[in-house]
């Protein structure tokens, strides 16, 4: 089930979602081409996380259509486990499994859901860990690692399933400032290697640098989207301008 050449890899049309009476996503349209990086910016509660969680069906949508790699995510009959093997996600709080070593964290899904043998999964995990300079932490438990190290392990855990698109949900928001760069460095490498990514982030400098497209979310709607140069220098919407100047102000203060 692959897409024909010109259809976008991730495609959303008229996606709406409510939590009870609260509309958290309203008529979202979004296209992401393969090997592109899209950054979602906006205040907390604007719907960035929910949007990402709809893409791998951690959340259901009430209206609209989501297609990932030719597969209709909102279809009742879709094999969610197969879908999620293609759509990796990394969370703000890392969500590593605390009772497992780093190596076990990374190899669990490939072994149980990815058709890897134990040896195959461990070989792959060790080379991925080596790539991020954490091979000597393979047998440690997550609570022995720094936040930055844990988050990089979480990224590697998602990569071990060979996803075709990676969703990053504010993955540096829980980190001490000095640990942010090691995580962003890894994401930058992934972007350069051509990984398709959708990134919810508060790191404006980073978004400007890696994104092919930036979307500004406000109250569940994509209020404005465009290339980073345009969004960050000449935003059309007053709300975007207001948001960006507030973020800039906060960065100056810190």
């Amino acid at each position, binding site marked *: 089930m692959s897409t024909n050449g010109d259809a976008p890899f991730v495609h959303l049309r008229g996606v709406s979602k409510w939590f009870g009476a609260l509309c958290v996503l309203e008529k979202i349209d979004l296209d992401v081409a393969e090997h592109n990086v899209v950054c979602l910016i906006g205040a907390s509660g604007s719907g960035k996380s929910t949007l990402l*969680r709809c893409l*791998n069906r*951690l959340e259901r949508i009430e209206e609209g259509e989501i297609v990932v790699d030719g597969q209709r995510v909102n279809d009742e009959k879709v094999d*969610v*486990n*197969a879908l*999620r*093997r293609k*759509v*990796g*996600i990394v*969370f703000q*709080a890392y*969500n*590593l*499994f*605390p*009772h497992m070593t780093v190596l076990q964290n990374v190899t*669990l*899904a490939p072994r*149980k*859901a*990815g058709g890897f043998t134990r040896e195959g999964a461990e070989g792959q995990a060790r080379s991925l860990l080596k790539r991020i300079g954490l091979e000597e932490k393979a047998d440690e438990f997550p*609570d022995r690692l720094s936040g930055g190290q844990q988050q990089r392990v979480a990224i590697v*855990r*998602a990569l071990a*399933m060979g996803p075709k698109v990676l969703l990053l949900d504010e993955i540096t928001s829980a980190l001490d400032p000095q640990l942010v760069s090691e995580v962003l460095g890894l994401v930058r490498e992934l972007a350069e290697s051509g990984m398709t990514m959708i990134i919810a982030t508060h790191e404006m400098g980073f978004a400007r640098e890696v994104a092919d497209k930036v979307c500004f979310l406000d109250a569940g709607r994509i209020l404005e989207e465009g290339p980073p140069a345009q969004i960050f220098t000449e935003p059309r919407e007053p709300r975007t301008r207001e948001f960006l100047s507030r973020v800039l102000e906060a960065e100056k203060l810190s």
Partner: protein
Amino acid sequence: MHALHQVYRTFFYPHSFRLSLPNVWAGFQVNIKMMVIAEALVLVFALALAIVRGLPGSAARPLRALAIAYTDFFRGTPLILVIFIVGFGIPGLQLGYISSRPVIVYGVVALTLVYTAYVTEVYRAGIESVHPSQRAAARSLGLTYAQTMRYVVVPQAVRRVIPPLLNDFVGLQKDTALVSVIGVAEATQLAQQFSTQNNDFPSLVAAAVFFILLTIPLARFTDHLVAERERRERAQAF
């Protein structure tokens, strides 16, 4: 002085103690046997029931309802009634094999039925205490619901509930004594017989000592686990 001597004669007379000890010890081995078998069965059945109670979706609603009914029923019924009902009722049914087991089997069945209900709730609390983000992470990697429970949720849940679990098992160990009411020749019953014959109580004190000796190590071990975990959690908080 006379009163103290009376106490000594009635409860701690060494001669009666010595005489009763072999019998009480033989009986206590029956208690240990019932306890070990019942605990093993409870661990398995209770986990199964706790998992059934947590099953998602409307298709599983009847199963969930059955599991809830089970725990409600057996937590609400006094153990001694369950022992009577199982121990006298099932043989009374005259169902061949099922109705002609040794009486100790009915004792173990009654203990298992009741304690499974308690321990199900313990497991359930443990399963619910695992943060939803752990399930989200596991499911996001493509693991099925069953795999998520098996490899991610249940192992964390079980680690957390070991102290309350052991606490329930201290209760189960003592409650094996109640099975004497359907005629299982365990420590309490043998001690009681000896006491009636000799008109004194050292045999009963001997039985009590056996139970205490068995539960104290378990209680200390539970304390140790709780302290260990608090230490670890505090270390993490800093």
